[in-house]
C-alpha cells in the first residue's frame, strides 16, 4: 500500500488511518457525566468534534495534506489555555510492543498578519491503556496513560521541547450510582521536561504555511513502559519517562485508546493537523 510506505510499522498493522479516506474512527473525547451534562469536568466540556480539513488559508487557498487533500483537524477555542482532543478507542488482543506513528503539523488561526510562532502552547499524544482481566496481580492490573507533548511556547517564549507527565488529577466520583469516575489527565500541571528533549522544529514565515513532521512512539504493553520516541531526525530513549499509573477500573480491560491533543497559549484558536497515523504491534 503506497501510503503505508512512509511508515515503519511493526509486524502487525493494527490500523492505518489516512484521513483522505474519512475520519477512520477518530472522534470527540467527551467527558464522563451522570444524570446531567453539567457534571462533566470543564476540561472535557470544552472539547468539540474533530474535522476533516484541506488546510485552506485566506491568502493562498488550499494547502492540502502530505499525499492528498485531507487531514484530521483538532481546533481549540479562541481562549488562552483552551484544549481540544481527538480519540480512537480500541482494545488490544495481545500484550506486545506497539508502535504509533503519525505525520502532523500545527498552527494558530491566521487572525493576525504576523508569524505568531508562540501562539500554540503545545501539541501531543497519549495512550489510555488498561491491562487485561487476567493480567498482573491476580487480574487487579493497572490503568496506564503515557502522555507526551511538544511544548511549543508559553508566555511568548518559544520553548520547543518534549515533555511527559506521570500524574493526573484526583479521581472524582460523578452522579449517584457509584459507576462513574472522572479525572483530568490533560490538566496543565505536572508536565516534566524530557531530558535532552529540546528540539527545533521547522516552521514557516507566516501562519498560513505549514511543514509536516513525523513521530514514532514505541511502547511495550507487556511491561507497560514507554520505550522510544522519535520526531523527525531525533530519537529519544523514554524508558525513564514514567506514564500515569492508577489502579485498574472495573470496566476498561484491555483498553487501547489513542488520543491527540492541542492547546493554545493566547486568545486565538490553535490547530493540530494529522495527515495520517499508523498503529502497529509486534505480534
Amino acid at each position, binding site marked *: 500500500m503506497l501510503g503505508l510506505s512512509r511508515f515503519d510499522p511493526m509486524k502487525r498493522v493494527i490500523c492505518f488511518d489516512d484521513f483522505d479516506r474519512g475520519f477512520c474512527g477518530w472522534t470527540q473525547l467527551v467527558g464522563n457525566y451522570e444524570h446531567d451534562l453539567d457534571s462533566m469536568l470543564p476540561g472535557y466540556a470544552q472539547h*468539540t468534534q474533530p474535522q476533516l480539513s484541506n488546510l485552506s488559508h485566506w491568502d493562498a487557498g488550499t494547502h492540502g495534506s502530505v499525499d492528498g487533500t485531507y487531514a484530521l483537524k483538532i481546533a481549540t477555542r479562541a481562549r488562552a489555555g483552551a484544549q481540544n482532543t481527538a480519540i480512537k478507542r480500541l482494545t488490544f488482543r495481545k500484550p506486545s510492543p506497539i508502535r504509533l506513528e503519525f505525520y502532523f503539523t500545527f498552527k494558530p488561526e491566521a487572525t493576525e498578519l504576523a508569524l505568531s510562532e508562540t501562539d500554540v502552547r503545545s501539541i501531543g499524544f497519549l495512550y489510555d491503556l488498561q491491562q487485561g482481566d487476567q493480567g498482573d496481580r491476580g487480574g487487579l492490573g493497572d490503568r496506564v496513560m503515557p502522555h507526551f507533548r511538544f511544548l511549543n511556547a508559553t508566555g511568548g517564549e518559544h520553548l520547543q521541547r518534549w515533555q511527559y507527565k506521570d500524574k493526573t488529577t484526583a479521581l472524582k466520583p460523578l452522579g449517584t450510582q457509584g459507576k462513574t469516575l472522572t479525572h483530568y489527565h490533560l490538566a496543565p500541571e505536572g508536565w516534566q521536561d524530557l531530558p535532552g528533549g529540546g528540539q527545533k522544529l521547522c516552521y514557516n514565515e507566516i501562519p498560513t504555511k505549514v511543514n509536516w513532521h513525523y513521530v514514532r512512539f514505541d511502547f511495550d504493553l507487556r511491561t507497560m513502559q514507554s520505550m522510544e520516541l522519535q520526531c523527525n531526525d531525533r530519537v529519544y530513549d523514554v524508558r525513564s519517562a514514567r506514564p500515569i499509573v492508577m489502579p485498574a477500573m472495573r470496566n476498561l480491560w484491555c483498553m487501547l485508546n489513542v488520543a491527540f491533543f492541542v492547546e493554545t497559549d493566547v486568545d486565538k*484558536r490553535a490547530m493540530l493537523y494529522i495527515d495520517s497515523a499508523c498503529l502497529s504491534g509486534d505480534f
Partner: protein
Amino acid sequence: MLRQNQTAVVARNEWWTDGDASEPYEAGWASEAMVFLRALSAEGGTGRAVLQISPDGMRWIDEGTAFETPASGQVTFARLREFGQWLRVRVELPAGARLKVLLTYNLKA
C-alpha cells in the same frame, strides 16, 4: 465507495445569548448539511438561528437560511447545500433570553 456521512456535535451544554455563535466547523468534503439545534433549556422566549458561511473560517456572512430557535426541550432544524467549506450558526435572541444548546450537524458527501 459509500458516501461519507458524519454527525458532528459542535456545541454541547453551552448557554448562548443574543449574538453568540458556534465554533467554526470545516466540512468542505460535504455537499449537504442538516443543522439541528436542540434546546437543553431555554429562558426568555425564542428567536432566530442564522446559518453563516465563510471563505476562510474567520470572516462570516449570512447564508440566507434562518430558522426559529427551539423552546426548552425542543429541536428545530434547517437544510443546507452548497455552503462551501465553513459553517457556523449564530443566534438572535430577545434581550434577557438565553438558550442552552446542543448543536448537531449531519453532513454527507
